[in-house]
């Protein structure tokens, strides 16, 4: 077995710099987390609290005829219940982002009148213990009248399909055509037009190990709710919840501490949280809800499933790609919630990594009787990037082109950066070809033929696949206006505060809501360098408390942006504080602020380091001894706030054109796998990934994100899937059937990196972490490569369990039918 390579084999541009930024210092979070002292929401208890258990619909689509909670209420230890009828009276539907018909959809905390997916909560019960709550939930009698079910998005759009939302009158949430360049001209100019009838990006989710939940306290005196929870974007949660609950946004206090993974799956928790808030108010006691694994799989949020139809690709004889067109049908499940943002978010990476200029996508999003979707690591871009990577490999296979050469020929070049895409996005920096070369070298590209022969001698088919992706980070929320011109969102922002306390302690609060990304550590590195202290001297408050932590409209941890927005805010705040400290010291020494340097926890005269005031002294002077300060320094508070606002413009709504994200990190994967000729079972035997996310604040954390994104991709490509039967039963509602790769499933990993600093961000960093699904693309490509000798089947699905591989290899003609080449 190849030894796992932990350190990058090739390190480009090694920079020696004093300071903590760029160093993999020990994480601040680790001390508590390795001792089991992390505080996750389910660890929080309150006197007299009741446990919530949701009664969930076993039907994917049914009319609710009646709900009878009387037997549940008779059980000893039951505190009360909540039903959809109460919810419909006490709250308004959550606002919808879409234009009609999607905007007409009514989404409440509990099902009102009918249920639209299996696992949808129809009632809630609160009891003294978790077990009793479940006992009581079983006693709630719900009479359903089953309705016809539709689980396929294309079937949902067909004439006569069962309609999920009568108010919308259609299963269409949103549709629109994206048309950039001149597709018809490109097609006319092409030497080959490759048509792919059908591609399917599968449904899965990152299934964070910690389930969703909250503990809610209601204070009657002030009408205020406190939610100890694990919402990863509470600001947005509040924007959904407060209007629906008919209260001001300040009535909702969100407190998070440690969160056991989010990956986007903890953004759409508002229906559950509203139900818990109503229960806490109704029952006059704290209530606690912990989702169970089966619940999470059935009814939390899945990643978007997407079908691509009639994909046409215009190619020149030498392999130059001119453009493509397709229809995309996105399946958002029973309720849009965060959607239809996914209908635009993909266009952050419209051309993928390639230079084609003529792209036309006819996009429709449909509702089906399945779990609602929500943002999921790589949200909406990985589906589209998978499409572009599939196109490249299918085109290469059909035209007998080398998958490496066709990529290099068509990749956006390093010297073209910053590069404006056909839809106005600006790729800030990067060198894709160099990343690819490095990845190929790591995996031993030149020895691959020998390895193929060796595999063959063991009854195996060896395949190599490339997955090249972009991780677009720092959203311009103006993109929402491209789906709904009425929406009043644009730009982005993030907040941090840094203060120097009375005894010299440096305290940082973040607007973000970390779930494992090490924000406490990286923020302390940035602050330490600016203030001349060590990260140990900087206390970054763990978690997020919306009453403590200053935050802005887009605060949260999502969409690969902390290294830009979060640390941009931290940097700004630390610089402001540095200036205040210098002014205080200058005031004391009768010098100018520019004469002061900050080092070793002191403010001192640069010309005479002996003249120094420790930070403790500065803190004491401003907070407790400020009469000694000159009048012009008395505005100093040593408690500063900075809002980082990226330089965005409003996009052009007509042309759907504009810069939608600030940074573009790159990940290039190369997967090597072996398929058992007799069974279709396969094993991933080697893997290399090269990452470029600009300046790296904490290389180890960056690598960790690369590892995680890789693992999610491998899972999605191989054993993680959320399939439904025709009745709308989810078939993988637990970790038995939804197989998450474990340590034996994951091959050794070789990693490398280059650094192309972003010219657009304060620290030269780029957002990263989502990874763009690179591993999915690489596995698909490797399977297709391995199967070339057995009839050259076409890998048409993002998820390829053994049985699908077996079908591909035994009936290659079935998938070959999907592709035609018209050569002129």
């Amino acid at each position, binding site marked *: *077995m190849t*030894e*796992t390579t*932990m350190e990058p084999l090739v390190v480009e541009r090694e920079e020696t710099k004093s300071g903590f930024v760029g160093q993999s210092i*020990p*994480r601040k*979070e*680790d*001390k*508590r*987390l*390795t*001792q*089991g*002292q*992390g*505080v*996750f929401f*389910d*660890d929080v*208890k309150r006197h007299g609290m009741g446990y919530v258990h949701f009664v969930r619909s076993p039907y994917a689509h049914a009319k609710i005829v009646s709900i009878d909670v009387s037997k549940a209420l008779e059980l000893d230890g039951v505190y009360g219940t909540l039903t959809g009828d109460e919810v419909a009276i006490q709250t308004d539907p959550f606002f919808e982002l879409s234009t009609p018909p999607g905007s007409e959809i009514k989404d409440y905390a509990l099902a009102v009148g009918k249920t639209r997916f299996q696992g949808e909560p129809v009632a809630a019960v609160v009891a003294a213990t*978790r*077990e009793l709550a479940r006992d009581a939930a079983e006693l709630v009698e719900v009479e359903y009248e089953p309705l016809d079910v539709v689980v396929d998005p294309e079937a949902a759009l067909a004439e006569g399909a069962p309609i999920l939302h009568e108010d919308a009158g259609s299963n269409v949430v949103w549709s629109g055509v994206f048309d950039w360049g001149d597709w018809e001209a490109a097609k006319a100019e092409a030497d080959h037009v490759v048509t792919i009838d059908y591609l399917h990006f599968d449904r899965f989710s*990152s*299934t*964070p*190990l*910690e*389930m969703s939940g909250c503990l809610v306290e209601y204070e009657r005196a002030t009408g205020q709710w406190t939610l100890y929870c694990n919402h990863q974007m509470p600001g947005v949660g509040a924007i959904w919840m407060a209007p629906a609950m008919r209260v001001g946004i300040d009535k909702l206090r969100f407190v998070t501490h*440690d969160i*056991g*993974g*989010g*990956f986007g799956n903890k953004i759409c928790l508002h229906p559950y949280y509203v139900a818990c808030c109503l229960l806490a108010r109704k029952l006059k006691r704290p209530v606690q809800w*912990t989702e*169970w*694994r089966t619940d999470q799989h059935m009814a939390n949020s899945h990643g978007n499933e997407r079908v691509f139809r009639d994909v046409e690709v215009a190619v020149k004889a030498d392999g130059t790609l001119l453009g493509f067109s397709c229809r995309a049908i996105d399946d958002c499940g029973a309720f849009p919630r965060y959607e239809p943002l996914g209908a635009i978010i993909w266009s952050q990476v419209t051309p993928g990594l390639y230079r084609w200029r003529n792209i036309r996508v006819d996009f429709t999003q449909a509702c089906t009787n399945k779990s609602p979707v929500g943002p999921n690591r790589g949200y909406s871009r990985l589906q589209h990037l998978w499409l572009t990577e599939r196109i490249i490999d299918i085109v290469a296979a059909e035209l007998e082109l080398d998958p490496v050469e066709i990529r290099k020929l068509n990749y956006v070049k390093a010297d073209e950066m910053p590069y404006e895409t056909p839809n106005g996005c600006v790729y800030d920096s990067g060198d894709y070809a160099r990343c690819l070369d490095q990845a190929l070298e790591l995996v031993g590209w030149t020895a691959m033929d020998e390895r193929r022969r060796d595999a063959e001698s063991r009854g195996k088919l060896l395949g190599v696949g490339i997955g090249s992706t972009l991780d677009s980070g720092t959203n311009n929320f103006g993109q929402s206006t491209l789906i709904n011109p009425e929406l009043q969102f644009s730009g982005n922002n993030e907040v941090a505060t840094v203060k120097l306390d009375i005894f010299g302690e440096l305290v940082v609060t973040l607007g973000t809501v970390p*779930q*494992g*990304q*090490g924000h406490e550590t990286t923020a302390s590195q940035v602050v330490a360098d600016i203030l001349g202290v060590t990260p140990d001297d900087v206390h970054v408050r763990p978690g997020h408390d919306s009453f403590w932590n200053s935050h802005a409209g887009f605060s949260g941890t999502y969409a690969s942006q902390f290294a830009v927005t979060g640390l941009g805010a931290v940097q700004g705040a630390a610089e402001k504080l540095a200036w205040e400290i210098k002014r205080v010291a200058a005031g004391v020494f009768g010098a100018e602020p520019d004469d002061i340097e900050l080092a070793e926890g002191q403010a001192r005269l640069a010309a005479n380091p002996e003249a120094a005031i420790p930070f403790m002294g500065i803190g004491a002077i401003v907070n407790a001894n400020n009469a000694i300060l000159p009048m012009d320094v008395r505005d100093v508070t040593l408690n500063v706030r900075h809002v980082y606002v990226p330089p965005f413009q409003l996009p052009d709504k007509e042309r759907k054109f504009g810069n939608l994200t600030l940074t573009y990190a790159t990940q290039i994967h190369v997967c090597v796998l072996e398929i058992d000729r007799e069974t279709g079972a396969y094993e991933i035997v080697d893997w290399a990934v090269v990452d470029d996310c600009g300046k790296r604040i904490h290389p*180890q*954390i960056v*690598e*960790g994100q690369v*590892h*995680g994104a*890789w*693992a*999610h991709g*491998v899972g999605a490509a191989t054993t993680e899937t959320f399939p439904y039967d025709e009745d709308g039963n989810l078939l993988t509602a*637990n*970790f*038995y059937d939804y197989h*998450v790769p*474990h*340590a*034996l499933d*994951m091959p050794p*990993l070789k990693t490398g990196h280059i650094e192309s600093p972003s010219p657009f961000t304060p620290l030269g960093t780029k957002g990263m972490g989502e990874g763009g699904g690179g591993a999915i693309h690489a596995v698909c490509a490797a399977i297709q490569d391995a199967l070339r000798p057995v009839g050259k089947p076409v890998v048409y699905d993002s998820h390829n369990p053994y049985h699908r591989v077996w079908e591909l290899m035994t009936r290659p003609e079935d998938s070959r039918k999907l592709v035609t080449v018209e050569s002129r």
Partner: protein
Amino acid sequence: MIPISFQVNGETVEREVDPRTLLVHFIRDDLDLTGTHVGCDTGNCGACTILVDGEAVKSCMLLAVQADGTSVETVESLAGDGELTRLQQAFSAAHALQCGYCTPGMLMSATYLLRNNPEATEREIRKAIQGNICRCTGYVNIVKAIQEATR
């Protein structure tokens, strides 16, 4: 309710328990040792791994009554004297944790491995943590950390 008496991290615990209470819930809710986590409802994820009489087990597949008369070790026992164990230090040094939710179970599985096989190979390490799901790290740095701790 059934009376039980057992050792938890070296201290005697005597309580009455409802037979249907799972050991993991007893540890978390009754003993307030919240380092032991719940990540699934089918015994697959290993976040609830503890040692019972020195054997690694999933505490969601044991009833609290079954712990009667045993000696239980949870993650809280590892740095009992305030000093992180070699393994805990290696986890931090190798960045073997991100969100930290799987970490307690992972540490207990690794502790069990190292007690029984202090010179485990990479393959043995992977096999030893196969019952512990991590969604953040792809296991790369977890394997590395345990390797560090074997040296």
